[in-house]
Each structure stands twice: as structure tokens, then as C-alpha cells.
């Protein structure tokens, strides 16, 4: 079996080690004896979504996102129909914002893909810290690092998870990200997938089922190290004393 992963605009959207997500997809397929083909699409390249099983849209700075926005107009229709036909998408940070209707910064409004019915507004105070989520999709918490100036309002969409520690979509709503069909859109860097192999496998399984039928299952992998890395963050932010110490440090 083989999956083809499209990495959108790595020349513009390559912030914060997000290529770790690609590496995670690739390795977890290869370790199971499956094939992974990763196609980077640079800005201006034409994209044939019918050949793709998974699309990764990463984060960029506000300036870079503005440049990307021009390229998005050309792929809007194809991308949207990919999503509606259950294509698997992982959108992180800037990529998450760009799936929405617009991102309003202090200077201008960047038009998004309007695939999700969400909007983002910039505020000067950035939301920066480790984050732990509980997602109804998984038994294991999802951990990562958030770093965003935008506040994302998700309307009637289903959030990706409930914030256990951290700030999330708006810093106030108590929720983080969006899940829509086979799309996971989130602010979580870290990168997201290596420390959350359950999220990676969830997306891989969705993509394999879509391509090869509902009987496909993923054999499990020895994930001790992944679990240790995940558990370390969960334990740290389950410790009230630690949180208090970190909060004091942050404000002094």
C-alpha cells in the first residue's frame, strides 16, 4: 500500500519544525512496510489533488502568509473538493488560519480558502506556551506548543480538543483547533505528530481507508519513546505546583 503526501508551499510555510510532521507520516508508513511518497509543492506549482491522499499545510509568518494567500486563490476549488471528498488534511497554525474565511491582522485582511467556516483576528499579545488537549477522538492526550498572535473563532465547528493546559483557539474559549471530515486543523507545533503518534495513525488510517477500503487496519508499532515524550508534558502540566512556578516565572 502507498500514500502520497502533498506538502504545500514548504518554501513559505516551514515554521517551527513542522516538517517533522511529514517525517512522522513517512516513517510510520515505512515501518509498517508501506510506501510513502512526499511531494513538495513550491509556491506557483500547479497541484493535482486527485493524486494526493494527505495534504499538509504548515505555518508561516504573517508576511509569508500574505504571499501564500495569492497562490491559494488558484487552488481554492480543487482543495475544497478534496476536503469534501474526505481527503485527509493536516493544517497547522498559519495553515489552520488559511483554511478559514479570513485572517485580519493589524494592517490588513488576508483572505483564506473558506473551506472552514472560521475567522481569525490578530491581537498584539501572542499566545505562547506548552499546551495539552483532551480530544474525544483519542484516549491519550494531545501535547504540543502553541505560538500564535491570531485568535480563531470556530463558530459551529467541532473543536479538535478541550484545553487541559494552555490557551487554545482564542485564549478564552477553552477549546483548540477544528475537526471537520478528515481535516485536523490546529495551532499545535511541537511538531504535532511525533509526540502524538495516535494522531498520526488516525490520519494515516483515514487516508488508507479512503484509498483501499474500510477493511484496512494499521498494525501497532513500538511507541515507548513517543509515549514517554507525551507523558512527560502531560505529567508536568498535571502538577499544580509546577504550573504555579511557571506562571510566576512568566510574569517576572
Amino acid at each position, binding site marked *: 500500500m502507498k500514500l502520497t503526501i502533498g506538502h504545500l508551499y514548504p518554501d513559505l510555510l516551514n515554521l517551527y519544525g513542522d516538517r517533522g510532521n511529514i517525517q512522522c507520516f513517512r516513517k510510520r508508513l515505512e515501518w509498517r512496510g508501506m510506501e510513502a511518497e512526499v511531494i513538495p509543492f513550491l509556491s506557483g506549482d500547479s497541484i493535482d489533488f486527485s493524486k494526493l491522499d494527505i495534504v499538509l499545510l504548515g505555518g508561516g509568518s504573517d508576511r509569508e502568509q500574505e504571499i501564500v494567500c495569492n497562490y491559494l486563490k488558484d487552488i481554492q476549488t480543487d482543495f475544497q473538493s478534496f476536503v469534501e471528498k474526505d481527503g485527509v488534511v493536516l493544517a497547522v497554525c498559519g495553515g489552520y488560519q488559511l483554511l478559514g474565511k479570513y485572517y485580519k491582522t493589524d494592517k490588513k485582511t488576508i483572505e483564506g480558502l473558506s473551506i472552514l467556516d472560521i475567522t481569525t483576528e490578530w491581537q498584539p499579545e501572542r499566545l505562547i506556551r506548552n499546551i495539552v488537549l483532551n480530544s474525544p477522538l483519542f484516549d491519550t492526550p494531545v501535547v504540543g*506548543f502553541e505560538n500564535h498572535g491570531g485568535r480563531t473563532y470556530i463558530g459551529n465547528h467541532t473543536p479538535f480538543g478541550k484545553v487541559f493546559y494552555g490557551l487554545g483557539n482564542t485564549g478564552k474559549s477553552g477549546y483548540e483547533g477544528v475537526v471537520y471530515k478528515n481535516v485536523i486543523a490546529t495551532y499545535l507545533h511541537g511538531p504535532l505528530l511525533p509526540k502524538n503518534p495516535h494522531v498520526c495513525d488516525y490520519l494515516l488510517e483515514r487516508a488508507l481507508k479512503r484509498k483501499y477500503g474500510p477493511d484496512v487496519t494499521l498494525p501497532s508499532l513500538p511507541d515507548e519513546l513517543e509515549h514517554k515524550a507525551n507523558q512527560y508534558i502531560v505529567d508536568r502540566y498535571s502538577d499544580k505546583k509546577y504550573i504555579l512556578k511557571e506562571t510566576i516565572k512568566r510574569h517576572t
Partner: protein
Amino acid sequence: MRLRSKFAIKCAKGTSALIKKLNRGSGVTLPGYVARLIDPDILKELSSQVRKKIIVTMGTNGKTTTNAILYQALAAENQKVIINRTGANMLNGIISAFVLSTDRHGLLDADYACIEVDEIASVKVLPQLKPDCALLTNISRDQLDRFGEVDITYNKLLDAVTSVPDTVLIINCDDILSYSLAEKSQNPFVTYGISEQIFDDISRSEIRESIFCRNCGKKLCYDFFHYGQLGIYHCPNCGWERPVPDYTAENIQFHEEVYSFDMDGLSIDSTARTPYNIYNTLSAYTALKTLGAGCRNFKSMIEAFDYGNNRESIFTIKGARVQLHLAKNPIGFQQKVSLVLKDEKPKDIIIQINDTYQDGEDISWLWDVDFQYLADSHAQSIITAGTRRHDMGLRLKYEDIPCTSTTDLRTTVLERAGHGTKNLYVIVNYSGLYRTNHLLTELEKEPEGGNHA
């Protein structure tokens, strides 16, 4: 001098003495805080007492080394120089450096001040210091959890230098971010750059800041890359291009682990083992020439200069050669990977990754380093340590490079030194440096640890 300033200096010195007496750390920031509390204009007051020039050094990588070169070069010309200590590069640390250099009348006796300034702190520091010259090493991604995005760092630096429009900028014109910042700022500027290809493939990570024209937004063309976004570039659309640098290093040769090069008529046999130290040397020299400071002894000074990647960080423990290296951001770490690969002997590697505020709480950057090369590094063992040892372990796992982890660095170093390849690399990020250096120094001294066993 105003009474208020005098009182501020007295109190700051008292604070410093107290910290030392109580053995509560090095006491390089609190005295500055105390002084500023009493006299908010203390830095203006003291910096105006510097007789000749004030140089600030800023940028992502190479600040400390460059500032040390400036200091040594000026000292070699018999100048009296104030310098701030490594890491004390925020406002309070800088004030401390000035305050603690005063005599008992609260007066400075200094010809020059060489001050390393943190990028975020620069906005506050520069207007008070009014430096004659600001040296910018380069701008790249570092501690993104503090800075947010590299564009935010860029804008802070731009704000800082435009607040002092007479300050001459010393700019690395191979770096599109630095060069465009200089052009935008309206400050006078002098450039330095290297036109030869001196960095190997391994030290050039594929992750770089966006290489899009800062004027028109189109993708830039590069003749070649040094590393990161540094290289020889031009914009095919609007014609914006890397200028001919005012100062350059040429005929760069790598021979027996060190570099030699020509610079402004000087032939330098340096002790630099890594190409980025050529940049650091060149930038410091450019600043000195620009300021009209003497450079008569520059050659002899720099040929004896310790870049800190040589003797200082090499220990002998249980007969093993143990090297300590600092790697605190992707570009820095990539250079270390390249250094490890240049050593063809079998080796053991310990990598310690912490995530304190000083290190950067976000360790995502580990994924921006091309670690896959370590598969060919003849490493007999790789052991991860530090609070984020499992994240580091995962990074290697996803390159199919086996590793183990430890929570007891001391035991692990002794075990590897005693039973390993006798060639041990210890790579740490920022907060682990001081303690690990201390640990290795101790282990070297111990009778069973050092040479004398």
C-alpha cells in the same frame, strides 16, 4: 555627576557584593535592576562617560564571539574597554556591566564599551546607549517562543536602529534580512561579506528563512548558499541584489583543522575551526576599521584568539578526549553536526536538551536540524539527556538512528569516557552549558577521572 546616579551606583555595588557573599549566582543582572530603579537614566549617564566609542553587537548567532574579538582587539591597542558578560545582554545586565566598572567615586575610566545586546532588549537599550556603531551578525530563527517569528525580531531590530539614526550599522550583506534592514533603516551602514563558498553541504540545512525579495516579494535567485538564507543572491524581478561588500575575506583555506584567510591586506592564520568564525572575525574587523580604531595588532591578536570551540571546551577524562559544544538553535546545531562529521574517528555522543525560558521553551527547532547525517558519524553510541531528552530521542528515532537516554549525566560521562571510544562529544543547549562545563572540569580534576589515574 548627579547625586542620584551616585546613590544608584552605590546601591548596585552593595547588591552585587551581597549576592557574591551569599553565593547566589554570578550577580550580573540584579545590580543593574537596582541601579535603574533608583536612577532610570543611569545608563545614559554612564555611557556618556566613555571617552571614545561605544559598539553594540546584535544578531542571532555569533554575538558573544564577535564581541570578545572586539574587546581583545581594542585591549591589544592598549585601550580601556568595558564589556558585558556572556548572557548578561538584557537591559539590567548591561547596566550592571557599566555600574560595576566604575571606581569608588562612581566614575568610569574607559576608552571603549563593547556591549552585546539581546534583540528584544535592543529597543530599550539603544536609545540610552546611543552607540557609535551597531554590528549585526545575522538574523535567523532562534527562540521563536520568545520572539514569535523571525519577522518580529527583524522589526524590533529595525525599531532599535532607527531610534538612533546616527549610529553606523555594520552589516552582513550575505544575509538578505540584515541587508534589507540596513536599507530600510536610513542609518549609514558598512557591509561585510564572503564571496567564496566555504560551508559544506552538511552545515547548510535545507530549512531557511524565506528567500523572497524584501522589496517585491518574488523568489530570489541564489548563486550559492553559505548556510540558512545567507548567500549570493539577486532578485530576477526587481534587480535587488547582494552588493559588493566593503570588507571581505578571501583565499580562505582549511588546513589541519583550522582556517587561514586574507582580509584587507592582512594574511591571517587563524585558530578558527569553523567557517562561521571567519564571519565573526570579519565583522569585528569591519567595525574597528569603520570606527577608526587602531588595528595595528589585530593580526597577532586574532592568531592567538581562542574562539572557545577549541582548547577551552576539550577535557581529558579517564584518558578520553571529551569535547563540550553549545548548540542552541538550528543553524548553530547544524554547524555542530558538520563538525562532528569532519571527525572520522569512532565516537560517542551525548546530546542534552533543556527547555527552560533561557533555552526557549519550544523545542520544535530540533526538527529543523538535519540530524540524518549523524547516521554516518561513526557514533558507537548516542545518548540523550536533559528535560527534553525524549524529544531529542524521537528526533533521532525518526531518522532511524538508535539512541538511549540518561537522567544522570555524571555517571554517563564517566561510563562513556571509561568504556567508550575515548572520543566523546557532549552537545548541550544554553542552560546546560554552565553546569556541564563545571561537571566536566570537576571530572577532569578527579584522580580517577583525569589523566593521572
